[in-house]
Structures are given as C-alpha cells and as structure tokens.
C-alpha cells in the first residue's frame, strides 16, 4: 500500500491510498470517527449564573469546545475503566474553571477564560464566545473534562468531513467529439481544458465522478470511470492533533481489534479440538 499526499495542512489532509480496497478505507474512516479518544467537557457544575442564557445552554456550548490534549505526554484513563470506579480522579478527569463578573460594561465570556487544572490541556481557540454578560451579571462554573469516543457523542469526534472517493479515470475519444468547448464548460469543477482544439484533462483530481460532462458529449465520446484500487481520502481535524497522528491512532485501534478477534477465534478452535 502506498500513500501519496496531495495536500497537507496543519489541520487537514488529502491523500491517495494506492493498492487498497474500499473496505479498508471505510474501516479506517469508521474507526477515526467513532473510536479515537479525545478530551472534552462532560460535567458542568454551575456555582453562579446570572447570565441571560440557561445553565443547560451554557453547559452544551462548553461541551462542544474542542480541547487540546496530547496522549503521549498526558496519560488519562477512560472514566469507566479508571481505578476510581467512575467517581472521577486526577487520572481520568481534568477540571476547568470559569469565573467572570461584570460591573457596568457588558462583556463576552470566551473559551480563553477557561482555566485548566492540567498543563497542556486548553481550548483549541481562545476566541470562542461562550456567553455574553450584561451589566452586573456573573458566571462561575466548574467543568469536568473526560475522555470519550465519537460513538457516544459527536462532541468527542476528532475529525470532521472525513470521506473518500475512487480515483477518477477519464477516457476521451477525440474523433467522436464535435464540440469540445461545450463539454469543457459543462464541468463545474473545471476538470477539462482545451489545448490545440482538443479536449484535455487538466485537473484530474477535481473530478468527483458525477458524469455530468457525458450528457454534453456524443455517446461514448467521454467516459468517466474509476480505479477501485486507488482511493482519494480527505479529512479535517477538530482538536489540534496532527492528521498523521490521527491515522496512526486509528491504525493502532484497528490492529488491536483484529488481534482481539484472532485471539477469540483461537480459543474457540482449540476448545472445539478438545
């Protein structure tokens, strides 16, 4: 299997997976969305809230704020697997507090006002508005962040817009095409260009296999096919983890699942032999 990176930004990536199958790409996708653990606020204790929004409203907004968390430097347990039996301790919970008060001027409470108890854990951006306070209003909260996975709630999902498509293969029969410009203009993703009066493929990777251009060409003149062993994969990261790290984690989880299955099958086959 080969990986050919098309675009790599700090929080998003697009690459081609070669010599693979759609089943494998989907396994990686599903694990990355639902099984890679992230840290997010789960419980909120409201000590004082005279802001215009309800307690539940603020708690919901806090829960959606992605928190920076590096699994290598800070080892946290899932709360239900922790030694504290789900009560919440330093090994499974990070506490964040907010306390803000206004006098005469209204003020916005930002995610940057969250003070973390653990070094290295902080909101991904300090500019997320949580609530606006009017004159003489106050907000005092204690938030408990814990590890979780996307299958329990979408707020724990480390990625957004994770998806894949087959690699496009465009076949053009130049003799059949009467009006190449019409075909080139039909494509709304600018895949084609015209060179020396001939229709040529300019940006192959822009093609999303919609086949709209074939409606504007003579039958069989332009054929949109795909190579099912090559997959274009793309996603965006929500919580500041590098994209390569996420793929690594998803791979680790997939391997551990396969090992688990293998071990269980071995137990069954040995017990049958006995």
């Amino acid at each position, binding site marked *: 299997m080969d990986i050919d990176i098309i675009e790599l930004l700090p929080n998003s990536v697009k690459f081609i997976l070669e010599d693979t199958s759609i089943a494998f790409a989907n396994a990686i996708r599903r694990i990355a969305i639902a099984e890679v653990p992230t840290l997010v606020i789960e419980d909120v204790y409201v000590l004082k809230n*005279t802001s*215009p929004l309800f307690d539940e409203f603020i708690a919901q907004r806090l829960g959606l704020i992605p928190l920076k968390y590096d699994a290598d430097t800070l080892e946290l347990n899932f709360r239900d697997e922790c030694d504290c039996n789900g009560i919440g301790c330093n090994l499974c919970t990070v506490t964040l507090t907010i306390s803000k008060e206004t006098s005469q001027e*209204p003020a916005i409470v930002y995610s940057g006002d969250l003070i973390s108890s653990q070094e290295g854990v902080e909101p991904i951006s300090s*500019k*997320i508005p949580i609530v*606006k306070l*009017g004159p003489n209003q106050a907000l005092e909260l204690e938030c408990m962040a814990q590890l979780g996975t996307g299958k329990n709630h979408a707020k724990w999902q480390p990625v*957004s817009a994770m998806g894949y498509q087959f690699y496009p293969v465009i076949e053009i029969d130049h003799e059949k095409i009467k009006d190449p410009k019409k075909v080139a203009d039909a494509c709304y993703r600018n895949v084609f260009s015209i060179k020396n009066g001939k229709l040529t493929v300019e940006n192959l990777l822009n093609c999303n296999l919609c086949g709209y251009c074939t409606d504007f060409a003579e039958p069989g003149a332009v054929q949109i096919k795909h190579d099912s062993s090559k997959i274009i994969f793309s996603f965006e990261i*929500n919580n500041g983890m590098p994209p390569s790290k996420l793929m690594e984690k998803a791979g680790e989880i997939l391997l551990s699942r396969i090992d688990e299955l293998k071990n269980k099958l071995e137990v069954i086959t040995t017990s049958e032999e006995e």
Partner: protein
Amino acid sequence: MIIPVRCWTCGSLIADKWEEFHERVENNENPEKVLDDLKVNRWCCRRMLIAHIDLIDEILPFS
C-alpha cells in the same frame, strides 16, 4: 441568539471565526472573500456564518 460553537452538519469549529467575519462584513468587505480568508471551505460551515443573526444583545437585560 449566539453563534453556534460547531457547524451543525460537519462538526468543525466555527465560533472562533464569527467575530472577525462579522467585523469585516460590517466594513463592507465581500463575505465570500472573508470566508475564503478564514479557510471556511465547505458550504455547510459557510452558511453557519452567513445566515447567523446575533440576538444575544436583545436578551442581555433578562438575567
């Protein structure tokens, strides 16, 4: 009310871009350009910012 923290459809963070977007559009900049600058690429996220009306100031007195 107040800008949603994440895009409803894809779940990527948009709330931190609201203030810059709002300020620049108020100064008669083209919203399309501002969204491109802020790297809000998908139209699910773009509509979150374009269609949002901030009503929090209206309810501010009712604590």
